[in-house]
């Protein structure tokens, strides 16, 4: 089984965002970057599929030199090899998907894994865009995945429940928290990752369709009212919710 996992390099969840001087993106100074958490689940799923069915797992990234750090993490977790489609320019999801789709066409994997969204732009588009570009079925927000006789039965999260989706392979899967518990890279894995190749090639040039105009902070919340310090404040709280906020 050939498994491709697409990974993204994103600011850590504890990051406090500062907007850059041009007001079109964040200021990356002092920001710690990491493998996007949902992509980490995708990597883990790829490794588990290889453990069960054999084959190889290839990690794919698209972006600048710094994305190697994230690919290195995937290699340390146990991915066989990595490809960086190099591009320093700003891309929207569509342009990222076009770059990945081009490479994935050549790789021809049986299983394509993505995180359900990157935790930077939260667009939740790339995996499904790639699926459509390659003419493949896809299942998003996957929390359970069983492969049997060339078919895959997935459970995906929807509002207030799960959908059980059946699909053929090859197919694209967008992984959600709960699907698995990603492993920590072992020391041996980290050492081995240093020797594993990261192939570099330029990402194909494409047009951007979604343009950033301006990035701004959400309106600051005025500091609220401390209603009290024990349960005697509860009637007052209910009154405020009813009369002032009018939410009851």
């Amino acid at each position: 089984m050939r498994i491709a996992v697409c990974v993204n390099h994103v600011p850590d969840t504890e990051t406090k965002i500062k907007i850059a001087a041009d007001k079109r993106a964040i200021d990356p100074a002092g920001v710690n970057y990491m493998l996007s958490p949902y992509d980490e689940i995708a990597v883990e799923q790829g490794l588990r599929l290889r453990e069960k069915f054999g084959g190889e797992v290839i990690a794919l990234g698209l972006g600048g030199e710094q994305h190697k750090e994230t690919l290195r993490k995937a290699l340390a977790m146990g991915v066989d090899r990595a490809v960086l489609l190099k591009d320093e320019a700003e891309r929207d999801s569509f342009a990222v998907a076009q770059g990945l789709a081009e490479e994935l066409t050549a790789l021809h994997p049986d299983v394509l894994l993505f995180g359900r969204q990157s935790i930077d732009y939260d667009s939740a588009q790339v995996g499904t865009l790639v699926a459509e570009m390659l003419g493949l079925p896809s299942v998003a927000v996957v929390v359970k995945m069983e492969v049997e006789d060339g078919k895959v039965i997935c459970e995906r999260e929807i509002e207030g429940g799960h959908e059980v989706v059946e699909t053929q392979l090859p197919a694209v899967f967008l992984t959600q928290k709960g699907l698995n518990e990603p492993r920590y890279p072992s020391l041996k894995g980290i050492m081995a990752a240093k020797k594993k190749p990261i192939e570099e090639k330029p990402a194909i040039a494409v047009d951007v369709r979604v343009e950033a105009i301006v990035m701004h902070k959400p309106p600051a919340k005025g500091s609220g009212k401390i209603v009290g310090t024990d349960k005697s404040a509860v009637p007052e709280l209910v009154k405020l919710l009813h009369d002032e906020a009018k939410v009851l």
Partner: protein
Amino acid sequence: MHILAFAEQREKQLKKSSFETVQAAKGITHQLGARLTVLVVGSDIEGVAAALGRYGADRVLVVDSPQLERHSSTAYAKAIAEVAAREEATVLFLPASQMGKDLAPRVAVKLNAGLASDCVALHVKDGEVVATRPVYAGKALLDVRVTSPVKVFTLRPNVFTATPTDGAAQVEKVAVEFSDSDFASVVREMKVAAGRPDVTEADIIVSGGRGMKGPENFHLIEELADVLGGGVGASRAVVDAGWRPHDEQVGQTGKTVSPTLYIACGISGAVQHLAGMSSSKYIVAINKDKDAPIFQVADYGIVGDVFEVVPALTEELKKALGKG
């Protein structure tokens, strides 16, 4: 100019997020001097479409086929893209529900369109749609424009208003041909969790954090949620500890929510949690640590013991809401 809005139905019920999408699309249609058509896709759903008239749809098209009895994203996306192309629609709106988020990228590729997802505000500037979308789980907002000839937007549920009016829609059936290859993936069954609304759709959310001290105490959260008819949320810490299921997690690696009222119980307010819930309209925090960051975003706070305050609040609300 022609605008197409997709209205999602599940189990032959139109979703509230669809009404929100239609009404938001109607607003933009009006500002652009355009024409709005609403599309409903499914099997045996012609009857449900008329309700969209009350949210601003004058014309509703229905792709109604027994082949769509079981949901298939590939077939649905084909139906939307084909109708959009036939109608020469250049702006499309879908709800950013799980279904909408699954369909919109496919529709975008079929129409060679740019897609701005999960928008929380829309306005028209110089004759084009400018959309505001949260990034970094809402730590920042980004205004974007779509530059391709066809533009697709998905709208975050629970953000846009859906106020019924006395309008009426004219419903027309349209045919789309499907082949076997359109059903490469199909939904076999739905497992619907009983009872409480999902946090992404709930008007009121009661969330618990590490201050609840253990999974055995979450009945306090559930009881408060049930009095309010709300959903139950959880912080990352308690989900990671296995106290609560993943689908309740609110925050940057969970769900981003915008309810009318968010009650945080025993949640200190890590950056990634605040990102996921600070767009709630009203926030109540109950925490014994007066310095907890959650109080910086809370409209109302009680600095106190959750094990005393939460049950007292449940009882008081029972009285106030006449459920006692």
